[in-house]
């Protein structure tokens, strides 16, 4: 099998068993278990919002009926047990029996075409909804058939009060229902596919017929090895961001109605939302509650794949998920499986590549000259060396080679120089030279030292599984893109008969190379402007990170705008807001609103993982440059 990391295997594996072997249950529990337990997942509209590649479609596929049936057919396979447990927590399965009949409808560009028709908005929305309903019926029946139930063995149960509407959908016999759905589909399809749309008077009668199967269908009953199973229909509308904003609103409004009995999910990317929704932490749909028929909290369950709250926990959860996913993918590669190499973590060496003796000597001379130039006493230097040693020895995980210790010492010396006035140094008394606050070595100083060494000596900085995870911006696809390069190199080593573990220097080089490719290959709306803006922000962050006293520890990887100023951007500077929205929607930038520092709330504009690797910045969060909207506008203006 080719390197499955090269592509998102879950997107293209046609075989359910193969799909289930590589999919990880972690996100199911993280995102769906709570709303399922609270009874909010299937009884109302659920919207799932995430960046491209965050795994929305993978999750949707996991719920699809044929996939669930395949999972349950393999009761003896222990590898599937975690998935069964996760789907049970999500109430899609109970006692090894499916509870839900889910189908997925990708809302491809075809549906967006309706909005270009020269018809009233209501008619355009009606045609789209009619086609969606016909396709939902077709997809449900096809899914049940794929799950092993013949058409004649399916019972479609209507709502008790839907007698009249049953006729319009072709009756409740599956074959009649299927036939009517096909008629409606073809009729509307002919309209949408036409080179020039017909006039309203010329529209096919079926295209505008009163066809509302989702208002009628209550449940499906199927025979499962002699046992009757009641299944709640679930329709998953994927890629809803492809719709025109007005269409999306019409879809939301239609699906949010309480009288619908079927479960319905809408999956979409951030770019489907308004700049205001994306940039100002307002939940999707929330600021549309003024729209007739939408009362947000009661009628819609929102699931954000990248929430802005509790980012520490999210990062840890992503690391777990990514490691699990990577190990599953690795297990698909025979060359590793044959050798029982089943953990990507084990392929990534964590022993740092230190500076060469000559570079170390050069660094030592630089530190010595700082000491001499500023007349810092031997004893004072000795204190700082002891402080560095104390920190490194107390920290079991710290990379504390001689080079890092020297670079840390350099930072402490510069911090000392900042805190003690130069005149005082010339007085040459220990009392006069004592800093007001003790100068301590900590993880920030160590990170700053390593960033300095990266830029001054090209010492590897990015290596190890946690770095790989953190550089992925909590995006599964980006993780796989980065991991693919490392796994491929490890595979090459194996083929050449060498140990498969990658040295830190190899990892660092490969990750930065791949990140640069990712940034250069961005291909989304406004990507050129986003790239140039991000580069300008990154340049400023690099400057800050290379301050000799490392005032921000590992340095900056974000700029911060006062929260109240940032919230005004969508209204006052819509062009800038639109560009920022796409930057966020495509993982180039991340927003961290309401970040409290210096008794003030800031909205941080954080560089994404690929940009961080590309520019050689820290992956630790929190270091930012204080800026104003005017600074952002200036950068934006230079790009325009």
């Amino acid at each position, binding site marked *: 099998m080719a390197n499955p990391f090269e592509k998102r295997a879950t997107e293209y594996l046609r075989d359910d068993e193969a799909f289930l072997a590589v999919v990880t249950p972690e996100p199911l529990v993280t995102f769906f278990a709570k709303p399922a337990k609270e009874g909010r997942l299937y009884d109302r509209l659920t919207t799932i919002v995430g960046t491209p590649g965050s795994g929305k479609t993978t999750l949707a596929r996991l719920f699809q009926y044929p996939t669930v049936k395949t999972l349950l057919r393999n009761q003896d396979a222990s590898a599937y047990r975690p998935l069964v447990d996760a789907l049970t927590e999500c109430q899609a399965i109970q006692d090894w029996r499916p509870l839900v009949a889910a189908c997925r409808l990708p809302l*491809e560009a075809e549906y967006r075409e309706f909005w270009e028709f020269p018809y009233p908005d209501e008619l355009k929305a009606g045609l789209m909804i009619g086609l969606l309903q016909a396709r939902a019926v077709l997809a449900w029946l096809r899914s049940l058939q794929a799950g092993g139930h013949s058409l004649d063995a399916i019972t479609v149960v209507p709502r008790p009060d839907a007698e009249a509407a049953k006729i319009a959908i072709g009756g409740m016999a599956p074959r009649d229902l299927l036939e009517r759905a096909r008629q409606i589909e073809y009729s509307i399809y002919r309209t949408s596919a036409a*080179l020039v749309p017909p006039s309203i008077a010329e529209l096919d009668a079926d295209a505008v017929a009163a066809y509302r199967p989702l208002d009628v269908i209550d449940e499906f009953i199927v025979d499962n090895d002699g046992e009757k199973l009641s299944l709640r229909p679930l329709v998953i509308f994927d890629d809803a961001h492809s719709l025109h904003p007005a269409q999306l609103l019409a879809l939301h409004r239609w699906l949010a109605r309480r009288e619908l009995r079927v479960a319905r999910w809408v999956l979409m990317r951030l770019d489907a939302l308004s700049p205001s929704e994306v940039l100002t932490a307002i939940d999707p749909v929330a600021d549309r509650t003024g729209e007739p028929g939408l009362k947000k909290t009661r009628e819609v369950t929102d699931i954000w794949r990248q929430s802005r709250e509790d980012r520490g926990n999210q990062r840890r959860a992503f690391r777990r998920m990514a490691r699990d996913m990577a190990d599953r993918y690795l297990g698909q590669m025979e060359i590793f499986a044959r050798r029982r190499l089943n953990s990507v973590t084990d392929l990534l060496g964590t022993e740092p590549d230190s500076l060469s003796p000559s570079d170390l000597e050069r660094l030592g001379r630089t530190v010595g000259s700082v000491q001499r130039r500023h007349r810092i006493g031997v004893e004072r230097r000795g204190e700082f060396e002891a402080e560095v040693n104390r920190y490194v020895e107390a920290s079991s995980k710290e990379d504390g080679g001689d080079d890092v210790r020297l670079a840390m010492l350099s930072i402490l010396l510069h911090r000392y120089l900042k805190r003690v006035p130069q005149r005082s140094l010339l007085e040459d008394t220990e009392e006069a030279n004592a800093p007001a606050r003790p100068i301590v070595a900590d993880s920030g100083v160590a990170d700053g030292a390593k960033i300095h060494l990266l830029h001054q000596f090209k010492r590897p900085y990015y290596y190890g599984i946690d770095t790989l995870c953190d550089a992925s911006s909590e995006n599964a696809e980006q993780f796989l893109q980065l991991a693919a390069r490392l796994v491929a190199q490890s595979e090459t080593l194996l083929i050449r008969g060498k140990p498969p573990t990658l040295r830190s220097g190899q990892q660092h080089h490969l990750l930065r190379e791949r990140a640069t490719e990712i940034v250069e290959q961005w291909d989304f*709306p406004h990507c050129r402007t986003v790239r140039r803006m991000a580069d300008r922000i990154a340049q400023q962050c690099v400057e800050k990170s290379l301050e000799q006293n490392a005032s921000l520890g590992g340095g900056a990887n974000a700029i911060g705008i006062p929260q109240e100023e940032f919230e005004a951007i969508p209204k006052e500077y819509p062009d800038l807001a639109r560009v920022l929205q796409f930057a966020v929607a495509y993982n180039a930038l991340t927003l961290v609103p309401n970040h409290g520092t210096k008794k003030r709330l800031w909205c941080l504009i954080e560089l994404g993982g690929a940009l961080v690797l590309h520019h050689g910045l820290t992956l630790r969060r929190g270091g930012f440059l204080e800026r104003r909207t005017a600074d952002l506008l200036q950068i934006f203006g230079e790009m325009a």
Partner: protein
Amino acid sequence: MSELRWGRCIEHRGDDARTFVAEYFAGTGRRVALVAGGGFDPRAVALFEELLAVCKSLRVLLLREERPEPARELLERATANLNRFAADKVEVTIAKVEIFGPDNAVVGGRNAVNAVAAYSLEGVTDVVVDVSALSVGTSYPIVRYLREQIAREAKNLHVFVALDPALDEAIRPVASDSVGFVHGFRGRWALDSTSGAAKLWMPQLARGRNSALQRIHDFPRAARHVSDCPVPFTPPSAG
């Protein structure tokens, strides 16, 4: 085997095409409408200038494809091209064709057809479409539209293209981030009745189109791909 749709068409290449233009369009009864791209592409004016030299009656519909964030240099080139269309005896109509909607959806094909449909061809004997400076997304739908119209109105339809692989490669495309069909060429794709049909994709390989090709590759999930033969065009050495 049924006859191919273009089986009865006449094709000229290179100098033969120039001779055809010089001889055919010089006829006294020829009233010609040229539909062409009005953008930055230097090929936009090549055919126009040849027609201008021989046609007794010529009018022009220029489709100006509009994309977001155009580079200033491209705008200047487009304006310079438009100025070259100015001629005393030629009526030039310029139609702006927005390629992307406000939500970045691709709407160029539909807009191009609307622009051509709104342009009167009354009294015209020959409609010439020069696709050299038009994108695939606009040129295919308008040729199809005109072919259907002209079949009803007993006119002639000519399609011209000035090949320049090096220039084509130098043009950086702006691809949509979602896969869709060229307007009017969806066939019966996605219908339940054809869901079991085999799909064949013959990718047109080109440099710098990796992400677009990848998206297409991921799109028709049940398709069987033929990807070993770059289709069709000139040999790579031509660039």
